[in-house]
């Protein structure tokens, strides 16, 4: 389960719907894995306004991962200009300027999209219910008495 998914999930119990501690869920005993994904800067740009930055920062800390920048990165900081030898130029004399993902974008991509919880649990900060994650799939089904 990707870290970015945690940006959209909350406790499934009715009584937690109005509680502001039911989001985000807190990963515990998490076994992480990296699953490589293609980089899409356009996507990162348009997902930024949807990120619950403080909450995600908390989750990242709880997982012991490298911290997020203290504030949401600016759109400009996601790319940088680089000089590159022009294609089909055997002389190597001509350079062109290209826009490439910056380190900020690469780090964000690695963290949000490539870092996955493989095994572990997600704990609700309001009711304490623990949701198991097995083989990367989070189980939000509640036992009958909690529905």
């Amino acid at each position, binding site marked *: 389960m990707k870290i970015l998914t945690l940006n959209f999930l909350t406790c499934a119990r009715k009584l937690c719907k109005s509680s502001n501690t039911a989001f985000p869920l807190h990963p515990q005993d998490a076994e992480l894995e990296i699953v490589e994904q293609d980089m899409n800067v356009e996507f990162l740009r348009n997902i930024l*306004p949807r990120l619950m930055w403080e909450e995600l920062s908390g989750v990242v800390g709880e997982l012991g991962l490298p911290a997020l920048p203290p504030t949401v990165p600016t759109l400009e900081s996601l790319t940088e200009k680089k000089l590159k030898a022009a294609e089909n130029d055997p002389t190597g004399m001509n350079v062109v300027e290209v826009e490439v993902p910056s380190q900020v974008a690469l780090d964000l991509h690695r963290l949000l999209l490539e870092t996955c919880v493989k095994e572990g649990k997600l704990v609700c900060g309001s009711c304490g219910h623990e949701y198991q994650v097995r083989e990367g799939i989070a189980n939000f089904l509640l036992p009958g008495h909690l529905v």
Partner: protein
Amino acid sequence: MLPTPSTSHVCFDRIYEPAEDSFLLLDTLSSASETSFLKERFSAQADGQDSNASGSSCTPLVLEIGVGSGVVLAFVAANAKTIFGRDDVLTLGTDINSFACQAASSTVQNAINETKSSTTFLDIVNGDLASSLHPHSIDVLIFNPPYVPTPCVPSLPLHPNINSKPTPTFEEESHLLALSYAGGAEGMEVTNRMLVQVPQTVSRRGVAYVLLCAQNKPEQVKERIRDWGEGWKAETVGSSGKQAGWERLQIVRIWRDGE
């Protein structure tokens, strides 16, 4: 016609096999009228409250409830550019059947790899309807529910034990398949529970697509949705299987107009 994602790795003894209803969803979502509606609603340039600092509208999040084989969500992920006019689209799914969650996850990922789509697939979550989703986060909600009228909906409590088994028995597999089609009274018990969740699940620009069959009394269902007030609308935007003037299956779009 856009290609149908491959589901050849899916075990149909315990997971719903794509059928007329699934294909009606694919056809409707990629029809000229729906793609132009969705493109306008989610155009990358749109401004307003759903946009980032440079004025492009933020990434739409698509949720399919009850993904089954994953064929519908995979289709949306693979063809996002045609459907939404943009490919920075997020896809997420839920199903009550954990085997479906695993299978659908592969279906979506395979379809994305095969078509080299640059959409982002999040995950399939094992859960009841949209109960684990952060309120108002979904932009497009899709549900092909268990809609066949039956004496009752299979009990859920029995269920978690089946999900955690590596290989379910024949009876358990029957239970999983029953969960995929059995809709209880008028075939509406699960759909009604889901409809209640729509206003709190979707965003301001949110749209839901729900499949109904003739026995679900679609005209009454649409009336009930319009009675929610606050500008809620419900219209039939796709149908199939005309019999004696009746549409056997139809897709209802649920949405609100304007900002």
